[in-house]
């Protein structure tokens, strides 16, 4: 396929959102468009949005599925706020997404789907393509269904159904043409996917090419765009990953680096289930996954595995965290390594399971009875989930403690390019397992300089010992109800966590900045983008993002005190700000949103501006 004669305009960045019915294959189109964009060397970020229902009635609002991709010739950090182009495969997709568009955005609508029946299902009284309600936008009406049908017409073995299903490939072909991206990667993906189903392969390829060809020939669209390779990107080998995959790979890497085997025990829950699915496939890395009967059992299994010398991991989302609390408390008492991953979603209770939020921080800190401190790590971007998982493992193993790793639904589902690390340069994690000492006594609660106790795993004669959830005397580990000992152990458990070495908080600051914006976890990209825009507008500002939430980096207080105004932005009701206020007694400002969605760059830019 060669590009045609229409003029090509160069853009710095573009946001495209594909939207259709759950059955329309929008996630698939989005994924393929991501592939072709990634190999072009654009920076990119993507965000899928699934319907809450499994399969809501076709054509309804509840059934709309979408996929947004933001790609650019310079570093970008979020999937973008407002799409430049919305591909709407049916009226419901249009209705559910049109409010996200700014004036002047383009809508590419599959006009075949705008039937009276579909309009009614979407709750439209008149056809928006015709009633003038979209006049703020550039609307391209394209009969994709018909054109796809025509493309596969006459193909011997292609069923009408296969033909119809291929209309998403038509859209892909058209968008590839529009943004000047060769379809080779998508084609070879189709080759693999439909290796066993030639007719489907043919239909899809035909549709893809038809979409491209339509772009070249149609008079509806008169010019194309291109986005050049990103040049501010570090050299190396890249792939795209979403947060789920990156977390999984980080855990496997921790297993390899530490020499421990990885045991993940989990109970399905949206959006954490995907991690179970992903790790279950890594049989060749010796990963053991167990779908436990519930979250309590999952935590217990991870902890039992840790007692046996494995890297014990359990992953869940909010409601499951509630259930694991008692076992996490036991892990605090046993002082064994264990990783608890909370892929946060919008709460409370069942809440909005398919929406994102950062509202489990205080639960991670305090969600267990008694004084039971533990380290908390969070991930800032989809690919950084890899590092965060490694960091959680490092802390858990070195300090013999359960660690809570906070990610969220947005990170889990969102993708970005990832500079694949050189594995030989990843830090080794020495588990320093206890060895037989021949001395005749073994004290399971003797502490080292890190305040950590020995990890003595079954199999070693001479190290037999019993531990449990009752307060124990130091260093023998025997049951103790002694008041002073309880005070000592309480202090030591606290000191151990407080003394964990974590990286200093980095500030990205203009020299004369008066406002510091603080975030944690997945708001990283949004905040950096907003900060960049402020700077582009000539403003001076500082930004810092927490990756370690307990303990906080040692320089936190110093940094907070260095700015007259500090704004803490969170996707919750102000949880980090509570911790920071209590710790540093500073009148920090809070911008806290609970709308089940990521913060938006424009919104944060506005908030920052209003405080400059």
């Amino acid at each position, binding site marked *: 396929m060669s590009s045609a004669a229409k003029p090509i305009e160069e853009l710095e960045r573009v946001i495209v959102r594909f939207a259709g019915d759950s059955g329309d294959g929008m996630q698939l189109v989005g994924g393929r468009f991501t592939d072709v964009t990634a190999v072009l060397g654009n920076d990119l970020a993507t965000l899928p949005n699934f319907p809450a229902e499994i399969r809501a009635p076709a054509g309804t609002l509840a059934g709309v599925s979408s996929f947004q991709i933001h790609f650019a010739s310079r570093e970008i950090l979020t999937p973008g706020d407002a799409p430049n182009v919305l591909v709407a495969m049916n009226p419901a997709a249009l209705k559910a997404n049109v409010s996200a568009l700014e004036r002047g955005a383009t809508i590419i609508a599959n006009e075949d789907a705008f039937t009276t029946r579909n309009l009614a299902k979407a709750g439209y009284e008149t056809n928006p393509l015709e009633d003038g309600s979209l006049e703020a936008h550039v609307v391209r009406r394209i009969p994709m269904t018909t054109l796809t049908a025509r493309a596969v017409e006459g193909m011997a073995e292609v069923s009408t159904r296969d033909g119809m299903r291929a209309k998403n490939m038509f859209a892909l072909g058209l968008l590839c043409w529009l943004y000047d991206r060769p379809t080779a990667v998508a084609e070879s993906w189709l080759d693999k996917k439909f290796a066993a189903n030639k007719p489907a392969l043919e239909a899809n390829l035909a549709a893809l090419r038809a979409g491209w060809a339509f772009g070249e020939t149609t008079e509806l669209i008169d010019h194309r765009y291109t986005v050049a390779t990103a040049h501010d990107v570090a050299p190396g080998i890249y792939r795209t990953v979403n947060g789920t995959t990156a977390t999984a790979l980080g855990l496997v890497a921790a297993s390899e680096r530490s020499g421990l085997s990885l045991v993940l025990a989990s109970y399905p829950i949206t959006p954490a289930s995907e991690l179970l699915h992903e790790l279950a496939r890594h049989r060749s890395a010796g990963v*053991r996954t167990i779908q436990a009967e519930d979250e309590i059992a999952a935590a217990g299994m991870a902890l039992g*595995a840790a*007692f046996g010398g494995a890297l014990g991991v359990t992953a869940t989302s909010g409601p499951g965290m509630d259930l694991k609390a008692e*076992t996490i408390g036991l892990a605090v008492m046993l002082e064994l390594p264990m990783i608890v991953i909370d892929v946060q979603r919008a709460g409370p209770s069942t809440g909005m399971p398919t929406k994102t939020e950062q509202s489990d921080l205080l639960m991670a800190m305090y969600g267990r009875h008694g004084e039971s401190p533990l380290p908390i790590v969070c991930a800032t971007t989809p690919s950084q989930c890899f590092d965060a998982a490694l960091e959680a493992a490092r802390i858990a193993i070195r300090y013999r403690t359960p660690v809570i790793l906070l990610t969220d639904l947005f990170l889990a589902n969102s993708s970005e390019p990832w500079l694949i690390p050189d594995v030989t340069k990843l830090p080794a994690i020495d588990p320093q397992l206890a060895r037989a000492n021949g001395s005749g006594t073994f004290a399971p609660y003797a502490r080292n300089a890190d305040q950590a106790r020995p990890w003595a795993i079954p199999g070693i004669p001479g190290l037999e010992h019993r531990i449990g959830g009752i307060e124990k005397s130091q260093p023998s580990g025997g049951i103790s109800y002694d008041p002073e000992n309880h005070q000592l152990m309480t202090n030591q458990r606290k000191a151990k966590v407080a003394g964990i070495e974590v990286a200093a908080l980095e500030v990205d600051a203009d020299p004369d900045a008066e406002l510091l914006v603080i975030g944690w976890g997945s708001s990283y990209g949004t905040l950096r983008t907003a900060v960049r825009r402020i700077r582009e507008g000539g403003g001076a500002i500082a930004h810092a993002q927490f990756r370690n939430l307990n303990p906080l980096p040692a320089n936190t207080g110093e940094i907070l005190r260095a700015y007259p105004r500090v704004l803490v932005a969170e996707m919750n009701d102000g949880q980090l700000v509570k911790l920071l206020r209590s710790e540093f007694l500073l009148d920090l400002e809070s911008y806290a949103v609970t709308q089940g969605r990521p913060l938006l760059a424009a919104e944060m830019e506005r908030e920052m501006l209003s405080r400059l």
Partner: protein
Amino acid sequence: MSASGTNGAAKTNGTAEPSGPRVLTKADFQSDAETRWCPGCGDYAVLAAVQGFLPEVGVPPERTVFVSGIGCAGRFSYYMNTYGVHGIHGRAPALASGLAAARPDLSVWVVSGDGDALSIGGNHLIHALRRDVPLKILLFNNRIYGLTKGQVSPTSERGKVTKSTPFGSPDEPFNPVALALGAGATFVARTIDRDKHHLPAMLRAAVAHPGAALIEIYQNCPVYNDGAFDALTEKDTRDDALVMLEHGQPIRFGADGKHGIVRRADGDLEVAEVADVGENALLVHDAHRTDPSLAFALSQIGELDGGATPIGIFRQSPRASDAAARTAELSAARASFTAADLAKLLHGSNTWSVGASGAGAER
């Protein structure tokens, strides 16, 4: 008041690795923690029986782990000079399942009480049995909550007056054997704390069983439920009350074996007089059947007539399983997983590279 012990500390033998074939003794399994059960508690007898039996298995203390829940029975793990975890209430099967998954080389035991295993921990128990996790599960059934000082348990008889049921328990108890069979347990036995011969025999059979083995142990709690099993242990009653199940043997009991169990015309089991029905009519016990229905029917004896209670192995029917093979495969995979393999995994199937200039994307 304060008290401190040394339960957690290891008693070690001074030498790190035994040289030559090691002869295990009961003492090898005794920790030096002071036992803290009430005088006369049935738990002592079980502890002694387990410690006495384990040397025969040949698995040394360092490869044996006792995982227990919370309750008087839960203290068990402190008294064994093996590795041990005293977990939280009801969760011992979960902890043990994780341990067994990570470490198929260990011999993992679970010790639990009737409240621990059947009330708060009921779900983990039935799932461990369903999954046939290779755990040896000792269920100390004293039909009461001991550690919390005398509340009703899921095995307490209906009408029982306890601290939490001052007007008598309104609920029917669980029959642990029937529950386990309903859950698909492949090995289910029942025994009595005081029976120095029968208890080790059950332990022996459990150890020989490849999957999950549940042993219900009737255990006397002299403080809160004294004499619950007296009918089965006292000289003047036990002959008529205790039915000893032995695989391949006709089921016969009572003085001179005068009673027996027969199948009625309608298929249900009942106790009959041998003199009336003749020896040949007696049911021959068969613990090895794939179909658990006979075992289940036997579990109902005693429950219904209150007169006679079977002990012994109800079911012992190993289930074909690829679990061991899967586990071995994973262990081998992990052992041979190198940094190079990791690198390959990190790369996945779709990469591109960015040159030093940042340009030149290729696939």
